[in-house]
């Protein structure tokens, strides 16, 4: 296939314009990677939290360190987005919401739902 050489070649992420469905996808990937990175630390917390009163308190204190708390808020968003976008992708597997208009609507539902849950849980757990 002949292609002209002067076509734009944007790897500049700021210049890439994604539709809202595209943001559901890329954030699904980013949140998944963040959750993967959190696995060893989560297992560490599980381990010490089960080692009596002292270990449990140590885990609780660790979670109270401001930077860790911030990481937990980001991980809360990651779980919510990964879960809700994941459910949307499972619907895609069953051919639900493939038309452009419907797909856009589903993408907005994902973001609105996760925003509501994120605000509610952040206030409930972290504030």
């Amino acid at each position, binding site marked *: 296939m002949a292609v002209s050489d002067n076509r734009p070649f944007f790897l500049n992420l700021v210049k890439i314009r994604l539709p809202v469905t595209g943001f559901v996808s890329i954030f699904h990937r980013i949140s998944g990677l963040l959750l993967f990175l959190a696995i*060893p630390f989560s*297992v560490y917390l599980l*381990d010490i939290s089960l*080692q009596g009163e002292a270990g449990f308190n140590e885990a609780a204190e660790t979670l109270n360190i401001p930077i860790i708390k911030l990481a937990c808020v980001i991980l809360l968003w990651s*779980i919510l987005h990964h*879960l809700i976008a994941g459910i949307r992708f*499972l619907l895609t597997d069953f051919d639900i919401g493939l038309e452009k208009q419907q797909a856009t609507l589903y993408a907005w539902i994902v973001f609105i739902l996760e925003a509501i849950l994120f605000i509610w849980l952040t206030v409930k757990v972290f504030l």
Partner: protein
Amino acid sequence: MANGEGVLMSSPGLQGLRPWIIQRVSAVFIGVFILYVFIVFLIDNPLNASDWREWVSTPYNNILLGLFLIGVLWHAWIGVRDIILDYIPNVVGRLLVLTLVGCTLIGSGLWGFKALFMVFIK
């Protein structure tokens, strides 16, 4: 196809229908389990050392946590592997990062199982 890409792309377990199905089955299990834990914490919050330990040492919770751990690690392996295959074209780089990720997941799994098992001993 980039040079040597076939080596990694055709390895069993790295592509095809099987990981696709595992990814979805594990996703459903993880989702349902998170919902279960969420409801438990909403209704009867086990947020002190002895309650938390008791909750984890309840046999069905312990088994579900073990299955959850396997599900999460397997799900993470398939997901991160896809990311690596998408963004690291170099074969040596791929093998290196895949190995690192694999070791991290296996290590986390062994550590997690140790933690889940020890509640019955000490």
